[in-house]
């Protein structure tokens, strides 16, 4: 049976408000929803960044003089939760996925537009609820992992709101994942084979598989945790016979794949951006696809490497060490393919390219420390120290957030029809890159020397390195200013971009910028090879 996808009838988009007002409406247009995800996520990034600055101000001196200890814990919890669940996951998946995937598969909208709108509109209320939970009596202070028994024994009203909020965000994530899988597999225009799709589609397919397979487990775990808090059951409460390690297993079964849920879309985006600005086809398309699927499979079976110090039996440590080390193989393939894409290309130095190259550099750093952390003896030495913090931020900020900015610079002309100012962009990159490395590189030393994480007070011998780190954080905070100025000035009076300012070959650049409501005036264009750079050149020869 076939059903007709008639946008005029199913979506009634013609009745939606036009112009900038549509971004404040319950629109079903995938482009509007994508931008809503991005802007909403960025607002939460500003909140989370402010909290991060507060943390670094507190850590500039050894004693807890700026914030009392429990306030420090609450700020830390809120920072982690906001950055992961409200900024990176919604933006790399929701924002760019919604905007780009229908273009890439040659559709006029996502597979389930209404479900898509529901997925987005779960985010602002639950995010506000999360922020509001800080102001109730006893805000959540067990970290973004909410490990019991800490989350059970600390004041609970804030923790319950935290759980509810994360459950709603998880639901939003699952709905988005279902939508992406259905769109990529079922909504491709006839004649478009899976192996002709741009890399970002493959990355989103892998990510959505991870979302669908692992997010429900987190939901179940948090439901059990909330029973422990509300109904006084003992699932994770050792006093009542429960087992805290079971919580850790279930939690990391989601939260380890969550790292890939954040990073895989970034892999896809950088694979879109590098070939365009290096004027070369993506090196090794097939290996890129298989490495993504390899990361998905391996990502699901390595969760216990977060728990080497939780009394994990030796055979389990061995298995998870080996499995984790194996992930370096597909990731290494991707890294070398990116470098090979750059090799001998006609590289144009612009903000999008700079942020992508910054990503590659940072990601190598984070990846190498990740392999180190997978080794049990080393992990036991640096567990719960700043080494882990440094590694994690190298992956998640140095990897993902750099790519978010790179993608904003790359697709801004398509979304608005205006070019961004390159001088502001390059200034933004320089401050971000210096600030980021100044902030997190010294933390490796802190960790190796034994400074524990998640504490407001520390041994005075670490003060100097901490101050350098705080200066770096300050630079990262400042770097947002040229970016925001750039966006506001360029939206008002930027240069006109034209349809395809980068001479890119992926399908979204074949329509006008900004794109019309139904993406294409006529039939969707068929792009045989999205990465066919240099093909004409070789034919001329």
């Amino acid at each position, binding site marked *: *049976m*076939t*059903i*007709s*996808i*008639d*946008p*005029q*009838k199913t979506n009634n988009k013609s009745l939606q408000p036009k112009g900038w007002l549509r971004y404040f409406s319950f629109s079903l247009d995938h482009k509007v929803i994508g931008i809503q995800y991005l802007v909403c996520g960025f607002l939460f990034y500003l909140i989370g960044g402010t909290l991060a600055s507060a943390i670094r101000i507190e850590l500039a001196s050894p004693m807890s003089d700026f914030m009392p200890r429990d306030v420090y814990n609450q700020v830390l919890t809120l920072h982690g939760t906001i950055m992961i669940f409200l900024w990176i996951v919604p933006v790399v998946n929701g924002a760019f996925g919604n905007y780009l995937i229908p273009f890439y598969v040659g559709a*006029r909208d996502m*597979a*389930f537009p209404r*479900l898509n709108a529901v997925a987005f509109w779960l985010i602002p209320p639950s995010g506000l609820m999360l922020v509001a939970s800080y102001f109730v009596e006893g805000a959540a202070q067990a970290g973004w992992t909410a490990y019991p028994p800490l989350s059970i024994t600390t004041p609970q009203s804030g923790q319950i709101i935290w759980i509810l909020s994360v459950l709603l965000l998880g639901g939003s994530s*699952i709905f988005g*994942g*279902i*939508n992406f*899988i*259905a769109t990529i*597999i*079922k*909504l491709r225009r006839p004649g478009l084979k899976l192996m002709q799709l741009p890399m970002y589609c493959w990355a989103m397919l892998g990510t959505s598989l991870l979302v*669908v*397979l*692992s*997010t*429900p*487990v987190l*939901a*179940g*775990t948090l*439901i*059990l945790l909330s*029973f422990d808090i509300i*109904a*006084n*059951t*003992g*699932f994770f409460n050792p006093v*009542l*016979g*429960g*087992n805290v390690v*079971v919580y850790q*297993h*279930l939690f990391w*079964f989601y939260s380890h794949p969550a790292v890939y849920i954040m990073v895989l879309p970034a892999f896809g985006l950088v694979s879109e951006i590098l070939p365009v600005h290096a004027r070369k086809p993506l090196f090794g398309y097939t290996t890129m696809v298989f490495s993504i699927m390899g990361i998905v499979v391996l990502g699901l079976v390595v969760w216990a490497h977060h728990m080497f110090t939780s009394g994990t039996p030796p055979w389990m440590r061995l298995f998870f060490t080996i499995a984790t080390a194996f992930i370096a193989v597909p990731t290494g393939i991707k890294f070398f393919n990116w470098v090979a894409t750059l090799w001998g290309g006609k590289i144009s130095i612009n903000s999008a390219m700079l942020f992508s190259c910054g990503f590659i550099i940072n990601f190598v750093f984070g990846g190498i420390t990740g392999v180190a952390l997978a080794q049990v003896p080393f992990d036991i030495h640096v567990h719960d120290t700043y080494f882990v913090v440094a590694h994690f931020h190298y992956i998640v900020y140095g990897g993902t957030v750099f790519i978010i900015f790179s993608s904003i610079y790359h697709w801004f002309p398509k979304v608005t029809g205006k070019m961004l100012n390159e001088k502001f962009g390059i200034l933004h990159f320089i401050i971000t890159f210096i600030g980021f490395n100044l902030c997190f590189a010294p933390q490796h030393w802190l960790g190796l020397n034994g400074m524990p994480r998640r504490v407001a007070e520390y041994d005075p011998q670490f003060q100097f390195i901490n101050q350098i780190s705080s200066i770096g954080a300050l630079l990262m905070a400042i770097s947002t200013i040229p970016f925001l100025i750039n966006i506001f000035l360029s939206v008002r009076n930027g240069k006109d971009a034209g349809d395809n300012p980068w001479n890119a070959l992926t399908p979204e650049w074949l329509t006008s910028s900004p794109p019309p409501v*139904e993406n294409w005036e*006529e039939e969707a264009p068929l792009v045989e090879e999205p990465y066919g750079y240099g093909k004409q050149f070789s034919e001329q020869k």
Partner: protein
Amino acid sequence: MTTLDSSKEIQKNNSEINETHEDFRMFGLITFLIADGMTFAGFFAAYLTYKAVNPLPDGAIYELELPIPTLNTILLLVSSATFHKAGKALLKDKNSDSQKWLFFTAFLGIIFLICQLFEYFNLPFGLTDNLFASTFYALTGFHGLHVTLGTLMILIIAWQSRINGGRLNSQNIFPLEAVELYWHFVDGIWVILFIILYLL
């Protein structure tokens, strides 16, 4: 005249951008059921781990009675068959037959829930008594929630096939098929749950 012209224009546009696709709603539902199944998988994993490494305190051994859950298993398996009957009848455009089978399936679902409540009231332990009790109520309760939702959905589609006879027919069988798939899923989960909770 202008209105006529513009309506023609819209029609033309519609036919131009009107594209047909394979029906992928069932595909979306299957993806959702995989996600839902993973929630249960998490619960089962937690239960089995507790069973393996957290033995009950001395004197707290609870034998579960088998008759009611066995009856419940039979009820759900029969209801799967009756639901299938409803789908077959609808495909032959026998709406009233289909509706009877749907109401019978919903009836079996309600009997299942009543039996489960009866079992709850007769158990010698409460939610917070010990770890086994908590896990037992969490697993069966979460499954019972699914049965409740499934029963409500069956009643809704039965009601839909009642009014003006046109909502559900052999041409528009998707709602029935979707609920049927969900119901089979819930049955399958119950069989696994019955095996690991009552028989192991």
